[in-house]
């Protein structure tokens, strides 16, 4: 099932959804549901196992070829979310008759509330992706300035590249002190003194990003809010909900974890990874999710990552490359020795690779985030429809 085919698809997705759903139901109830109870149990069980498999896969891919928190890994994470969400949607659809019964109604409405909160995280993440795109523009300037087609690396080119690196460093720094920078918002336009030194723009012009969330919004608080009152269902709850309390808890946990990991990876306003995350080990997916959680927390505690804008591997690479290049440039004397020139070329090559990764990965990632947004909205809309319909047995 393609998980990211939403964009550009012209078929109204409601109808796609329906056909997928009916297809699924036919497969699940080939004999027209004479054994409805057990087949639903099987469906719920299969969901648990599948979520566990998907996260195991994520966990092992991060251990194997793919790096944890690399762009491609984050995209895989979102694919995982979309698949879980789709299966969960089928489960809700198959149980629509009982969604409005207590205590399931409360669990479902809590889940939808969490979804609304996650929408704001999605938006913040989109801004963050755009911010990385801004950084990329400066990297591209460096690459243009130091392009291998230049026969020699002259002082002018190095200076141009150095300036782009400085601008980039300021951009990346500024976001950490977003508050102080944003205070410049209300300065009177264009009345600042015209400086003559080349550094006069420091801290004045460099608000790299226009957040589309409000200024006081905090990703950390939002994650906290998603996590609020999220606890594993008790035995009587499971019994009273035909077992549906379990997938609701599972999907809520997946939502929380995925949003948390996005906030960990991508720059956004007031990141904070302190959200306590727990799930009883008895859930088959708990072990891989908790292990990923732990590994990401560890990553965030590493010395060179502590002050990062985001744990995305590519951001780390940008930071490392730009720092090395900048140091190198500051140390060189003209004319360049062959050795130094080769060193610069190597740095540029590395930077070019990061840039390519960003070029390939950022747009699809943004589409996926948007897709996650719409899947959450759609699942919520459908859920509300089912609930209001089941309130009115005809």
């Amino acid at each position: 099932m393609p998980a990211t085919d939403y964009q550009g698809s012209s078929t109204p997705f409601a109808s796609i959804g329906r056909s997928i759903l009916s297809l699924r139901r036919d497969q699940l109830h080939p004999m027209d549901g004479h054994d409805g109870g057990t087949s639903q149990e099987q469906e719920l069980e299969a969901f648990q196992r599948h979520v566990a498999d998907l996260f195991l896969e994520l966990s092992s891919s991060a251990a194997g070829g793919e790096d944890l928190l690399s762009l491609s890994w984050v995209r895989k994470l979102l694919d995982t979310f979309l698949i879980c969400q789709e299966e969960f949607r089928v489960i809700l659809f198959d149980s629509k008759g009982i969604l409005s019964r207590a205590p399931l109604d409360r669990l479902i409405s809590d889940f939808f509330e969490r979804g609304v909160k996650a929408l704001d995280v999605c938006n913040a993440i989109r801004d963050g992706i755009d911010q990385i795109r801004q950084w990329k523009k400066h990297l591209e300037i460096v690459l243009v300035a130091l392009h291998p087609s230049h026969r020699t690396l002259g002082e002018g080119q190095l200076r141009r590249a150095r300036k782009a690196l400085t601008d980039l460093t300021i951009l990346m720094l500024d976001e950490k002190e977003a508050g102080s920078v944003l205070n410049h918002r209300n300065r009177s336009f264009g009345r600042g003194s015209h400086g003559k030194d080349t550094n006069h723009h420091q801290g004045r012009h460099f608000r790299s990003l226009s957040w589309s969330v409000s200024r006081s919004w905090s990703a950390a608080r939002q994650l906290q809010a998603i996590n609020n009152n999220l606890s594993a269902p008790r035995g009587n709850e499971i019994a009273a909900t035909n077992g549906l309390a379990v997938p609701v808890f599972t999907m809520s946990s997946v939502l929380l974890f995925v949003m948390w990991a996005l906030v960990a990876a991508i720059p956004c306003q007031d990141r904070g990874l302190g959200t306590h995350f727990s799930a009883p080990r008895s859930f088959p997916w708990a072990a891989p999710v908790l292990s990923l959680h732990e590994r990401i927390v560890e990553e965030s505690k590493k010395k060179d990552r502590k002050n990062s804008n985001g744990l995305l591997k590519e951001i780390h690479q940008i930071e490392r490359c730009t720092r090395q290049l900048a140091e190198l440039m500051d140390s060189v004397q003209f004319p360049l020795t062959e050795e130094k020139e080769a060193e610069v070329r190597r740095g540029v090559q590395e930077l070019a690779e990061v840039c390519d990764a960003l070029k390939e990965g950022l747009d699809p990632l943004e589409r996926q985030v948007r897709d996650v947004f719409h899947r959450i909205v759609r699942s919520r809309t459908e859920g509300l429809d089912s609930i209001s319909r089941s309130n009115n047995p005809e």
Partner: protein
Amino acid sequence: MASENGEDKLLAAVRHIAKTLGRTETMADDILQIFSTFDGRLSREKLSEKQHDDGSLGDGGGGAVAAGDDRLSLSSMNRTLRYLDHQISRFVALDRLIWSDSADASAFLEAVDDLLDTIHDLDPPAPGNKPLLDRADDLLQKCMLRLEDEFRSLIERSDGGSPLDAPAAGSSPFDSDGENSDGDDVQVPVAHPVKDYDLIIDALAPGTVSDLHEIARRMVAAGFGRECAEVYALAHRDFVEESVARLGIRHRTAEEVQGTPWADLEDEIARWLKALNMVFRILIPSERRLCDRIFTGLSPFADLAFAAVSRASAIQLLFFADAVAIGNRAPERLFRVVDMYEAVRDLFPDLDPLFSDQYSTFLRTEAATVSKSLAAAIRGIFMELENLIRRDPARAAVPGGGLHPITRYVMNYLRAACASRRTLEEVMEEDTGTASPPDPDRPSSSLAVQIAWIMDVLQGNLEVKSKIYREPSLSCIFLMNNGRYIIQKVRDSELNVLLGEEWIRRQMARVRRWGNEYQRATWSKVIAVLRTDGATGSAKAMRERLRVFNAYFDEIYRAQTGWVVADEQLKAELRISVSELVLPAYRNFLGRYRNAADSGKHAEKHTRYSEEDVEARIGELFEGTGKRS
């Protein structure tokens, strides 16, 4: 030696004069030419040669072995560069904006052009000119830094300036309410009248725009296009975002929108509707035009700059609609959500040319998605309306069987909704996925089906409610009242077109049926008393029948004068049909009764109501005045 030394000094002096007087390479050349014809010692060769040997960059050996021509051109290049360096350094060191003096500005641009030409001439590199190229590159870098600063300052200087000042007196229709504009900072874009979106905001004065274009042209030519687009975006984005903020639009999260009371949200939506049009029809198109002018002929930098400047504001505005769309589906929200849907939909034709390039085309997709969400919200609201009607409890009966508030609410609601009939058609068809555009006057359209369904639900709910009356007759009156009201509201509105004549005929038949039921329930026993089947009973039996009739009629009169039939025509029809049923029977009965009675006098004593009395009393039914049963 002395003369040689003196000649050196002379040559140096001549070179210095040429360099100082000549602002350009050719001018300097011309001056040297003049000197060379003036005095044999000042030959071009000597002047050039000497200059080259003096050149700080000259790698003596290489220059000496180079072919004469190369040496000549290299030395001329070198001379030019030195001259340009001198020129440019003077400008770069200026402690004020170069563009504060137009002569300085054009001199600087000319120097940059010469530098670019020189670099062009040095490419492809000939042996020995690498140091020259490096020096030229270095110089170019200095120019670009300075141009970038000048570019930024030109924008910032203008952003606070006059072009945006409100052209007319009076408060702007788009003034944000929270914001107090302080004195010289007033630059709220104003459109008079509001519907006129052909307005273009000139955020920058034409002179500034052409200055910026001149700078951009050089920066792009030097390969600094990205820097230029970037500095444009950084310097101008605040202006765009500030303009949006001044329209009263704040950043809102989905959660905030969810938590906002509807009354407040309605105000926000009203502001948003105006802002949406202002931003997408005036502000952003103006930005597009501005970018196209500054970066004219310099694509893709116009697109790059435009996308960077407008992205955030566009997304911010569209997201608000997303947030409203996922909100509560209370029926009263329909009208505002329809407004929002229409506003976004109506933007599409304008968005296509606006966001046609690769950097901003996603905004079109975004807008299309938002309109889909709003459409889904509208359908959700209809579903909710249906649920509310179905669930509306039959608590207390409306006194006298009159019009129920829910009937009034639903009918007026649907009538109001039908003001946006075409939009609703579109929204409903979208759900069914009909490929062909709907025929809006076809009663079988999705909207028509939806409305007919809601009418059925309403009818069902009213029938449940009619059961709480103890008398079946009153139930009928209740259903007739509400049924009649529904017909009237359908008839004099667009609902008529949607539901069609056939539906109205069926509804009327229903009302007639309830009328018949009413007659049966109320009057059949009365008629039965009066009916003697031709046989004349005993006087006593006749008297007994009359007594029963009087009792029935009294009771009906007492009860049903308190009942209500609001519609005058229906009331008249009801009374006539009752009269037509009762009066002939009564007249007939009275005739037979008088015959049977021994004495007329005696008969009159028991005849409480004359025929005329009965008719008059029937005429008082359903006035809602009498005592209630």
